[in-house]
């Protein structure tokens, strides 16, 4: 038993918090290098970001954790567990759980760019979890580096003592040893009772087609070992552990994981839905009394239709969604039909980025060209006959006469900005139908503004507008607070006289005319001219509120002298045809993908 306590004292669990491009992945690689975790020959840039998409976008979607043996300057052998975090508000809950699995965090700030918005939200999460935060000023070898200014900024903006901040360059390997020494010295070893019943925190899971679900977790109390019967406390499901291990970064099978350790278990689990992030794993025969705090079921908040461009891809699309769902408990989907787009699926996501990621993965990994409709939220329709229906698709909205009133989801949004932008942010929130709740100065420079906002407005373009109107300095977080009554109407869009269900949207009555007009103007720009004239109309019920006309193409024929260069002529036609492939034929009008998303990106200013 002493052994376990001794081991516990040598563990350091930490994660890295950084803004995109500030060098998180490179730093992680260097740490892996210098602890000898990866061999020279298998070095691959950004080891932790495994998915192609992650590497490309510089964001983490699936979490990883790595166990690194480290001999410190004090001559002792430590076990460092580096737990990766996703970096976007859509995944705020996942971030909070992976931070909960740590005792410390490296706050990486670019020496030239200083503290940026995205970092802040995560730093505050880390502070909420009582993590020891170690500032690291990265890229100090850049000519434009200003480490002293950035140190000051960390102190002023984040409110952390930055006097011991390591000056590093992950790219050139400067400061890495110092960082590791600080981790050993300053991050506290994990608490937890080795003799108590097992409690382990799930911070991610991954579906493997051979082993079933691989659960990434951190043991808080007790021990987990092979053969043990375990129970997921929130989902109340029981499994038998078949494998226990850790990533080094290669998976290594261990006898057990005990207090403070981070690793994975395999237990013939068929579905990631049984291994919810934030849930507590306990011993089924000797269960803990209380689960770990902070579990919450994450529900999709944003919905959109996903349709194959080529209707013969429908079954492939279903399979793709099935496969993605295996690995992503927060993705939901069900079949739906659109008169304009044919057979497809209504999918639910955590947020807009999550939605974009899934769309890109369908197109890239499964190679299925898709059309997506503008995102929507769940509306509650109180009908005159006393019944209530919930709709997540604008086309399902009943006729006006049948509606008594409509409720829509609201969120409480916290927006942190430098005080120069207070006016701008309040104006934006006001424009987005927000109700002012509170405003607090965090220090002389930073303000936290709290508003209640309709989720639909957030889904619409709030985040983009917030970013652009505050030059990227705002950080933003939100939580659902329930439903409120709103004057909402359904806006239909007619192309060539036919209503296109996939373009319908629900909008506040006061904004309907304006948004309808802007949308038809936008569609006019996005829909290429056809061989005939195409009227575009926006209508509420039978009333047309806006109209534009796309004039017909007059002529489309190569009448150029090409000599004998047939290939070039062919390529030109191929290119024209390729452009058409990305379009969906609605009625007889060719409509590009962007048009279906246009509803979302109306710049109202």
């Amino acid at each position, binding site marked *: 038993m002493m052994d376990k306590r001794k081991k516990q004292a040598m563990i350091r669990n930490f994660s890295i918090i950084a803004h995109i491009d500030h060098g998180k992945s490179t730093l992680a690689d260097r740490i892996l290098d210098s602890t000898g975790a990866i061999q020279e020959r298998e070095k691959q840039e950004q080891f932790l970001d495994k998915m192609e998409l992650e590497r490309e976008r510089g964001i983490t979607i699936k979490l990883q954790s790595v166990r690194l043996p480290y001999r410190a300057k004090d001559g002792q052998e430590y076990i460092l567990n580096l737990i990766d975090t996703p970096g976007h508000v859509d995944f705020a809950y996942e971030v909070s759980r992976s931070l909960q699995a740590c005792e410390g965090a490296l706050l990486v700030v670019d020496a030239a760019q200083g503290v940026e918005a995205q970092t802040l939200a995560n730093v505050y999460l880390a502070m909420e979890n009582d993590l020891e935060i170690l500032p690291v000023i990265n890229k100090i070898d850049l000519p434009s580096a200003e480490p002293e200014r950035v140190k000051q900024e960390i102190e002023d903006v984040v409110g952390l003592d930055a006097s011991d901040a390591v000056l590093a360059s992950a790219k050139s390997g400067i400061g890495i040893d110092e960082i590791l020494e600080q981790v050993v010295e300053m991050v506290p070893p994990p608490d937890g009772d080795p003799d108590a019943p097992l409690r382990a925190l799930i911070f991610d899971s991954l579906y493997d087609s051979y082993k079933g679900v691989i659960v990434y977790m951190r043991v808080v109390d007790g021990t987990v070992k092979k053969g043990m019967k375990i129970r997921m406390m929130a989902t109340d499901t029981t499994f038998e552990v078949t494998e226990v291990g850790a990533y080094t970064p290669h998976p290594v099978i261990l006898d057990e994981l005990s207090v403070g350790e981070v690793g994975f278990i395999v237990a013939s689990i068929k579905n990631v839905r049984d291994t919810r992030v934030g849930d507590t794993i306990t011993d089924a025969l000797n269960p803990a009394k209380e689960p770990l705090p902070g579990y919450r079921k994450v529900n999709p908040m944003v919905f959109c239709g996903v349709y194959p461009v080529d209707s013969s891809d429908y079954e492939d699309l279903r399979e793709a969604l099935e496969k993605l769902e295996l690995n992503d408990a927060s993705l939901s989907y069900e079949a739906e039909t659109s008169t304009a787009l044919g057979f497809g699926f209504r999918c639910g996501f955590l947020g807009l980025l999550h939605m974009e990621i899934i769309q890109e993965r369908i197109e890239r990994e499964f190679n299925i060209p898709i059309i997506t409709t503008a995102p929507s939220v769940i509306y509650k329709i109180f009908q005159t006959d006393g019944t209530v229906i919930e709709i997540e698709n604008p086309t399902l909205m009943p006729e006006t006469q049948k509606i008594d009133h409509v409720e829509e989801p609201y969120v409480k949004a916290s927006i942190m900005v430098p005080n120069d932008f207070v006016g701008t942010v309040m104006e934006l929130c006001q424009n987005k139908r927000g109700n002012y709740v509170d405003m607090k100065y965090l220090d002389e420079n930073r303000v936290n503004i709290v508003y209640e906002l309709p989720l639909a407005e957030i889904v619409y373009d709030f985040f983009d507008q917030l970013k652009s109107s505050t030059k990227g300095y705002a950080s933003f977080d939100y939580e659902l607070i329930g439903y409120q009554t709103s004057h909402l109407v359904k806006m239909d869009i007619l192309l060539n006289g036919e209503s296109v269900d996939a373009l319908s949207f629900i909008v506040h009555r006061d904004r309907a005319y304006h948004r309808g007009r802007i949308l038809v103007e936008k569609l006019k720009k996005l829909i290429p001219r056809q061989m005939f004239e195409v009227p575009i109309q926006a209508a509420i019920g039978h009333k047309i509120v806006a109209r534009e006309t796309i004039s017909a193409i007059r002529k*489309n024929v190569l009448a150029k*002298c090409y000599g004998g260069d*047939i290939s070039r002529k*062919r390529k030109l036609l*191929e290119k024209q*045809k390729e452009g058409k492939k990305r379009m969906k034929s609605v009625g007889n009008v060719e409509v590009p993908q962007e048009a279906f998303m246009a509803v979302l990106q109306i710049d109202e200013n």
Partner: protein
Amino acid sequence: MRPRAVYIHIPFCTQKCHYCDFTAYVVDGQPVDDYLTALEKEMKMITKEVPPGQIEAIFIGGGTPTVLTPTQMERLLMGIQKHFPEQSPSIEFTIEANPGTTTPELLTVMKKGGINRISFGVQTFRNTLLREIGRIHDNADIKRSVQQARQAGFQNISLDLMFGLPQQTVADMEETLIEAMKLSPDHISCYSLKVEEGTLFHHLQERKELPLPSEEEEFEMYQLVRSFLVQQGYHQYEVSNFAKPGYESTHNLTYWKNESYYGLGTGAHGYVKPTRYMNIKGVKEYIRQIEGEQRPIADQFSERLEEEIENFMMLGLRLLDGISKQTFYERFGFDVDQIFQAEISDLINQGFLYLEGDRISLTEKGLIFGNHVFGTFIGTLDKIEHK
């Protein structure tokens, strides 16, 4: 089947036109004689590799082939006669010419060397427009050159015209057509300006300094050309080509019927079934390659049957006569209706194509939206095969 048509590229010009993206270089200081030597050697190499059939069309294009001196021209023509001796009695032997470059002396050499058709790069009769597009000739040059060619005994003269030029109006186009008629050409090609990358026009367009006519005006010009020329007794046999009866260009028809042709000279394209090839661009590189006893090929590929069939449709339908089902069957051993069943019936139902006896042809609407029709056949067969 042995090629029965020859394209020979002369890449020299007095000056490069603002819209031109062909392989063409200002002639001053160019090794023209070395080029002609290389060209003759290429004729030798290629005819050794693939012997010619009875030649029905030769086309010397450019560039401006008429920038050659009479001596150089004589030498070129003798080379051609030497390597392509077996010629049809009805051979069409064309040279492209720039108005103002055809001296009576040069015309005599051309005639003597076997040329029987001149295609003048007129483009427009309006002097201001000619300057605008970088041509070196003027209205008077055109008239004089055509008259001199007639006097030298050329009985088949074609004029190349362009529409959709910067600042060109429908009225300008009409004036050009009226002027052209005064010269009684036997054939007219009328091309629309397309701004290509790497040209001065492209550069100007990027800077928004190229005042092109509107699409509506361009469309009107095209319709004007068609109705005007038909009234004047020409018949439109291809999207951009008009001829008096019996004067359809044999060489152009080689392209539209997707038949083999040699392509000789720098930057030339050739099609020696089943191979399509493109020669090296650059006069010096071309000469060097040939001096090293190598065919000067920059790129070549063997055309798959599916591609050949698709190209047959893409090219054949440009002809107003369309394609013959019988010819298709004889050439490929399939029924065109079967291979392109869906495509053809859709295009017919939508009013782009019509069937008449053995032939499938563009309707008026199909002509105007030709790219839609041609594009329908492109890439289709791959898909069928994979299924």
